[in-house]
Every structure is written in C-alpha cells, then in structure tokens.
C-alpha cells in the first residue's frame, strides 16, 4: 500500500488520462477538457505535499524513490503540464485535433517524466523515459494532415529509437559488469570489486550518457530538435522543450551522481565535451535563423549546454545549480513559446514581431522579459541560474569552459535582442492584433511571475533544489 503512496502524483495524472480516454467521444471542444487537465496537474502538485518534506520513501522494491529531488522535478512537471494545457486550447480548436486524446497523451507523457525522475533503477528509468518519448512521438505528429508534422514525427521516432537502443545497450553492459540495475547497488559493486576501469563498464557509461544526451538535445545528439520543434504544433514544442529537457537533465544528474559516482573522472570529461559543443553550436546556429520556433530550438540546445555546466564539478552545489537551471529554463521557454502561440501564424517568423510594441504592448513587454531572461541579464531568473552554473564550472577549475559559456552568452544576446529591437524599434507590418485568450494570458502571467521572482529572490529556488 505504501508503494502506491510513493507514486501518488503519477497515479493522479494517469488516472485522469484514463478517464479522458474513456469519455473521449463526449469531449468535443478543447475548452471543456483543458480545465480538468489543469486541475489534475494542480492536484498532483498538491499531493507532493502529502509527504513530509524531510523523509524520502522508496517503493516497488526499492526502484522508485520519492525524495526531495524527485519532488522538485515533479513540481516542475506539473507546472509544465498545466501551462502546456493552457497554451494548447486555441491550437486544438483551430487544427481540429481530438482534444481528449491530446490531453491524455500530455498527461501520460508527464507521468513518464515523473517516473523517470523518481527512478533509482536503470530499468524503471528506461520505462519512464520511454513512456515520455512514445507519447511525444505521437504528440509531435498529432495534426495528421500537416506534412511538416508527419515528417517531424517520423524523424523523431527514428532518431529516438536509435537513442533508446543505445540507452538499453548501455544498461545491458552495465548489468553485465555489475550484476545490478539499482543505482546504489551499481555504485557499491563497482567500488567494492574495483572494476572502475573495466572496458565494458566504461562503454556502458558512454552509451547511457549518449542515450540520455539525446533527450536533452545536446550536441552531437541534437539534430532532431530543430526539425521537431519546427514541425510540431507550438504548444507541443513548448511542452517538449521544457519537460523533455528537464526530465533528461534530472535523469542524467541522478545517474551520474549516484549510479556512476565512482566513474566521475570519465563522465565528467564527457559532460564537459557535451556542454562545450552544445553551447557553441546552439548559439552559432541560432544566429542565421529567421523562423522563431527554429531559433528557439537552437537556443534550447545551447541552454542544455549551460545546464550541463553545473554537472561538471560533480558536487552537490553544482547539481543544485543544474536543477535550478532546468526549473528556470522550463518556465522561460514556456513563456517564450507562449508569446509565439499568442501571436498565431504571425509569430512563426521573425518579421512578424516588427513593431509589436505599438500593436500589442503588453505582449511585447512580456516577450522582452523572457528574452532578457534567456540572455541572462539581471534581475531575471535566467541570470541567477546562469551565474550559478558558470560559478560551479569555475570552481571545478574549468575556466576555459566558463569563458566559452560567457562568450556564447554574448553571441546569444545578439539573436535574442534582435527580436527585442524588431519589436520596439521598427514599424509594424500589419496592424491586426487579436485579443489574447484568457488561457494564454494566464499561462504567460505564471511564466513571467516565476521569471521575475526567481531573479529577485534567487534563494527560494536554491533552497528547494536538493541534489540526490
């Protein structure tokens, strides 16, 4: 019985998904289903409080741990789900997508994310990630008559299966050497038997890292991100960008810090390489983009790199910085995509932002806030998060990496602020500005609030972000 309590949030979400599937026929419009999804998300978040904060419980034979780490990310995923649901309403009606199945898939994907984060066993981790990814494949291509969506979905499926295969192969190799799939058992076996240099184990570490890096969209496993974000519906892109990345980062941190703790020298170097390549490639490629979603996709690759900087020293403070970065980034990107959604088809291209300050001053101001946060300018949450991760890289002695990160921030300032200049300092092209639907407004307000509060009170997040 206590086992079920440890997965209470996941139960709530999957239960709602099942109910939605059962009544799918009855649900005609997105507006009727969305509030239920939001309620479910909030309920899941509240259920996290059912556990007393200090203790951590394990369940299902010690494979699921409901500790502060998992609760931090589950809170994030609930928020992600709620905001994505709010942002989807308008799109679902215009693209004539069946709302019930869409929301069910969102709920199940979030469930998968929560499982992945709570997992302390490699196989459960794999299960959670697969649940998330399978639902994502369908979500990306959910608009059946859009060729771009279909193409994106198929690409994601192929590459994602490849990555999952790598992950599974790595798990198998690890099991072969250590005889266990439980994180702490792996770590203790490796250090006890002194097999830290066993080639199969090292290969396993490399493969697992590669498979997880795919979820984060780190270079060189990033190539799916731009095409998928561009082809999918904007709310789906937002959901993936925030949730899949956070889930991948959370899993990566837990696996590296707990399971492969004796191998720190090895995965530390790989994380450095991933981070450096991602930051550079993402920032450089984003400069020449003229389509907003693609630009945000490349920038998300760069942000994955920044987040990984916190993992480099392998200390709890660094992991905490990565956690904070994932949290803050999720809300920033939901906000940025939210503005893209709010503008409709006009928001797809950079040119559509011309003169936005005159036609829609509120939206322009909110977008400016998110752009500042993405660049990392105080007093936004993006700055505190970036400061923390760069500081942890410096503490680990990787000064060059920190300098690279700062340089790429300068580069990123160009393409983020280019949008701001277009919004504020050019003449508008069309004067039509439809009113913001209430759901989108609410989502933008929540994201903006988190961005501002995180910047002014950075300690709030830092205190909650407890590493595994």
């Amino acid at each position, binding site marked *: 019985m206590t086992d079920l309590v440890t997965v209470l949030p996941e139960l709530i979400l999957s239960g709602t998904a099942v109910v939605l599937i059962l009544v799918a026929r009855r649900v005609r419009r997105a507006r009727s289903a969305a509030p239920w999804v939001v309620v479910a998300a909030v309920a899941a978040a509240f259920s996290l409080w059912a556990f007393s904060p200090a203790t951590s419980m394990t369940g299902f034979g010690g494979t699921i741990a409901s500790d502060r780490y998992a609760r931090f990310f589950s809170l994030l995923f609930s928020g992600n789900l709620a905001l994505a649901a709010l942002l989807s309403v308008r799109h679902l009606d215009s693209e004539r997508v069946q709302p019930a199945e869409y929301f069910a898939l969102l709920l199940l994907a979030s469930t998968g994310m929560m499982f992945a984060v709570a997992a302390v066993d490699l196989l459960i981790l794999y299960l959670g990630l697969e649940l998330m990814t399978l639902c994502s494949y369908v979500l990306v291509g959910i608009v059946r008559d859009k060729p771009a969506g279909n193409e994106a979905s198929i690409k994601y499926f192929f590459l994602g299966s490849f990555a999952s295969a790598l992950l599974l192969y790595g798990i198998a190799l690890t099991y072969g050497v250590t005889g266990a799939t439980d994180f702490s058992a792996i770590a203790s076996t490796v250090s006890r038997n002194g097999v830290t240099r066993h080639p199969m184990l090292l290969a396993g570490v*490399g493969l697992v890292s590669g498979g997880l890096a795919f979820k984060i969209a780190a*270079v*060189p496993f990033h*190539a*799916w991100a731009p095409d998928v974000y561009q082809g999918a519906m904007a709310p789906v892109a937002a959901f993936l960008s925030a949730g899949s990345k956070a889930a991948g980062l959370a899993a990566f941190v837990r696996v590296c810090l707990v399971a492969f703790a004796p191998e720190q020298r090895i995965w530390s170097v790989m994380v450095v390489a991933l981070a450096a390549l991602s930051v550079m490639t993402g920032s450089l*490629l984003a400069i020449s983009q003229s389509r907003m979603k693609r630009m945000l996709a490349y920038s998300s690759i760069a942000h994955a790199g920044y987040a990984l900087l916190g993992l480099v020293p392998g200390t709890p403070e660094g992991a905490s910085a990565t956690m904070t970065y994932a949290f803050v980034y999720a809300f920033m990107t939901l906000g940025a995509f939210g503005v893209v959604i709010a503008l409709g088809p006009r928001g797809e291209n950079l040119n559509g932002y011309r003169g936005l300050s005159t036609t829609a001053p509120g939206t322009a101001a909110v977008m400016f806030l998110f752009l500042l946060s993405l660049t990392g300018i*105080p007093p936004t949450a993006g700055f505190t998060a970036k400061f923390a991760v760069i500081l942890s890289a410096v503490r680990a002695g990787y000064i060059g990496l920190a300098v690279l990160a700062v340089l790429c921030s*300068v580069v990123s300032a160009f393409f983020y602020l280019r949008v701001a200049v277009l919004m504020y300092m050019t003449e508008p092209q069309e004067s039509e500005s439809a009113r913001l639907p209430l759901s989108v407004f609410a989502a933008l307000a929540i994201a903006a609030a988190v961005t501002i509060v995180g910047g002014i009170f950075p*300690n709030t997040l830092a205190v909650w972000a407890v590493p595994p």
Partner: protein
Amino acid sequence: MTREWIHPGLLLIAGAWILPFCKGRTKRAVMILLPAAALVECVVMQPGTYGVVRLLGQEVIFGRVDRLALVFSYVFALVALIGMVYSLHVNDDAQHVAALTYAGAALGAVFAGDFLSLFLFWELMALSAAILVLLRRRPAAVAAGFRYVLVHIFGGLCLLAGIVLHWSHTGSLRFGDLSPYAGSAAFTLILIAFLVNAAVPPLGAWLPDAYPEATATGAVFLTAFTTKSAVYALIRGFAGTEILVWWGAAMAVYGVVYAVLENDARRLLAYHIISQVGYMICGVGLGTELALNGATAHAFAHILYKALLFMGAGAVLQVTGLRKLSDMGGLYKMMPRTLSLYMVGAFAISAVPLFSGFVTKSMVVSAAGESHRAAIYLLLTLASSGTFLHTGLKLPYYMFFGRDRGLRAEEPPRNMLVAMGLAAVACVVIGVVPVVLYSQLPYRVDYIPFTVRHVTATLGLLGFTALGFFLLLKQLDPEPVVSLDTDWFYRRGGTAVQNFAQGALARLEGSVSRLSDVVMQRFVLGVGAQLRDIDLRGVDAMMVGIGRLTEEVSCDLTLAMSGHVQRYALIMAAGILAGVALAVFGL
C-alpha cells in the same frame, strides 16, 4: 544609529514610474521633486553601511556610504535635477523614465559595497542608457543604440567573468582596492570592463558614436553617468595602477586630436569627454592623495560643465535643427543668452581662472608635477591647450560667430535656459570659492590653486592658444567628414575595403601634389605607398570583422543541418563512438 535608509537610487528608479500617471503641472512638479528629493537625501546622509542583504551565502551591500561615494552622489543627484529641468518641455514619458532610471542606477553603482550589486546597477545603467539613445527614434539612433547595447553587454560580461574569478579566488565579493591582485585574470577583466564604460580608447568608440545620436535632452544625462561612475569605480578599485597614468595621458591627447577633425558639434564635445576623462584616469593611475582628490574633483566639475556644454549645443540643435558646424554660423545675435551660458561652460572646461576647471584640472596636473613626471605633465598641458582650442574657441566661433548664413533662430525655451543657468552658477561658485568642493573630497586638501605662477602660466597658455587659433583659422574650417575610430571593426564589412583602398589612393595624390619639391615628392610617395600597402594587407586580414565572421560561421553550420534523418543518425553514431572510445581508451 538605525535611521530608516532609503536608497536614493531606488527613489529615482521606482519614483520614475509615477510619471506616466501624472499630467500637466503635476507631472512637471514630480519631474523636479524626484531628483531634488534624491539630492536632499544624499546631502543629509551620514557615512556608514546600510542596506545589507544576504544572498547566495554572501553579503550584498547596497549602501556603502563614505566620503568618496558621497561626493559622487552629490554631483550625480545635482546633474539629474538639472537634466530634468532641462527636459521639462519634452512630451515623451519614456525618455523621462529612462533618464531617471539611468540616474538612479548610477547612484546605485556609487553606493554599491560589493561586486554583485555593482554588477546589477552596471547592467541597469547600460540598458537604460541604450534605451535613452534609441528613443530618438531615427534610424541612425536605432543603429547607434544597438551598437551601444552590444558593446556594453561585452563590457558587462567581462565584469561578470572578473567578478566570478575574483570570488572563486578570494571567497569575498567586497568591492574594494584590487591592487593586491594586480596581474591576475580577474584584475584584468574587471579593469577592462571599467575601461569600456570609461570610454578609454580603443574600447571607447561607442561614446562619440552614440552620444550625438541621442535627443538634445537625453544627451545631457548620457554625458554624466556612465563614464563618471566608471571613474568612481576605478578610483575605488584601481588607484595607483601604473599603466593608467600613460593610458590616461594618451587618452587626453587622443580626444583632442580627433576633435580637430570633427564637424558635428556634439560629437566634438563627445571626444572632449574622452579627453577630460583621460585626466581623471591619469590621476587614478598616479595614486597619490592629491591625484585622487584631483580625479574626484575633476569628475565633479566635469559633470557640471560638460552638461552645460551639451545643453548649449542641444539648445542650438533644438532651435535650428542643425548639428554640423559646417552648417552653422551667425547665431550670436539671436541667441545671446545661450551663447553667454555656453561660454561659462567653455571657460570652465578650459580652466580659465575663476571657473571650476581651473581649481580641479590643475590638481591632477600638479600631482603629475609632484611625482616628477615631466612627459605626463607636458602631455596633459598640451591637451589643456587643445581643450580651450575646441570648446572655447572653435565651437563658439563656428556655432555663434563665423559666417552669417542668414539662419533664423531664437532663444530656446525658458526651462532650458534655467537649467543652463543652474549649471553655470555651480561652475562659477566652485571656481571662485573652491573650498566648497575641496571640503567634500575624500582626502584632506592642502592644495592652493590660486598661485601667481599658476594663474599667469594659465593665462599665458590660453591667450597664446587663442593666437594660434586665429593664425590658423583657415585650416580649421569644418568639413563635412567623419573620422575613423575603433568602432570601424564592428561596423564595416568586406565592402569597406574597396572604398578604403580607393579613398586612400585619392588622398595620397592630393597630399603629394601639395609639395612642389621633386625630392619631397618622391619621398612622400614612397612612404605613402608603404603605409597603404600595410593598411591594405592588415585590413584584408581583418576584413570580415568579428561580427561578419560569426555570421558566416553560423550560415555554414546551418548548411550542415540538411534535414536528412540518415545524416543526423550518422552524426549521433559518430558521437557515440567517439564518446565510448574516449571513455574506454582515453582515460
């Protein structure tokens, strides 16, 4: 002593947001009351430490109040008040909010006791100043404002990097004297960041680029805060750094040299900012009590008289719409009050006795003298002559006198004249009764400016500079040209090379033909050709400029994202193999 302490900067930044909600007379009253309240707050403030917040395990100090911070705060608040009076007639709320935020952020930077709050206000200053430039809403201003943002983001990130390195080495974020860490990377990075804001060449091309593009009223604020808060930061952290002595002296001459070539009135004044800040930086470098007092006093006086000069040029811009000297002339009949108030500023900057520059600039020059540095002394005095040449002679001559072009003009609105009058009064008061300023300086002042030798030498210097001016009057006729500065590197792409080469060739022929002697001709041709070759090759090598290079790299990389799944999978496979190989064999 736990009196309630309100940060005067916060007063301005937060109070500015009341403005959009007021109208008419209330709005004007608020515009004047806010900086006045900040000034009063600064004057009654007692030295101490206020506003301490614990953040990320460090102490963040928002209110480090000592003599140095106080004297800078007085002048910042005062010029904010003067600037607001000057802009009473402007109907653009955004400009007022931006200007007050800018002033408030400068006050924040002055009172910052640790690096984190300093960085916060540094970035806020850069942002609000850039917005102030952009608010002119003309294409040239938008472009200049964007360049301003990029240069200052670069400076801000240097500062951040330096702060982080400093923190990791020392574990402390306190903003104090950094000379124990001289030579370290953190020291250099922070120094570079401060020098960017101080507009030190070669990092300072943003100043003459952006300041003339702002509005007439916005430019008054711009001249006061960014560079002087950088000077404050340098006095606080880098006093006695030897390299600054030479750099400052070179800067003083550099500004003057470029000013000779300038045709735009406010751009010429902008180059003079660089020149005067050179004096201050030289003083920081010298490091003695007299030198640091001199740098502080000179900053104080400079803010006031530079604001006055920009207000004068801005008034001409406002009334006639002209900014280029080659277009102006004959205005003295129609704008006598503007002219006389402007001349007060010109005399102040030229260090005419009984005006503020005389009692402040001489402190720095005397400090150079007391340290027995003849070359610095001579360079600074040369720059003094140049300063009088431009601001005291060339500008007023071509703006107000010179050829009468039949321009129609009138005196500017009354609030502008009142503001100019306030600044002029301050310049004269400081010049006549220097103890008013001397008593506020951080160190005890033993210096007496009114010595016989000093007064007579200054009068002689100025008088004979004027003689030189009139002798070479023809040479100084302003031409409609722009001069190249270090911002060429980020403004021009490959197409500039063509123009440059052709232009250089044309100019070479012109200079050669002027010398009739055959031997001279051959000599000059030879030297000129060498220079041109070096220029071309050097320019070729840097042809693309850093921005273009990055853009091209980006376009090339984008081509690699072909859209074919099999290519993507290949990249992934290559990555995995590399990773596994690295893991298994590499370590």
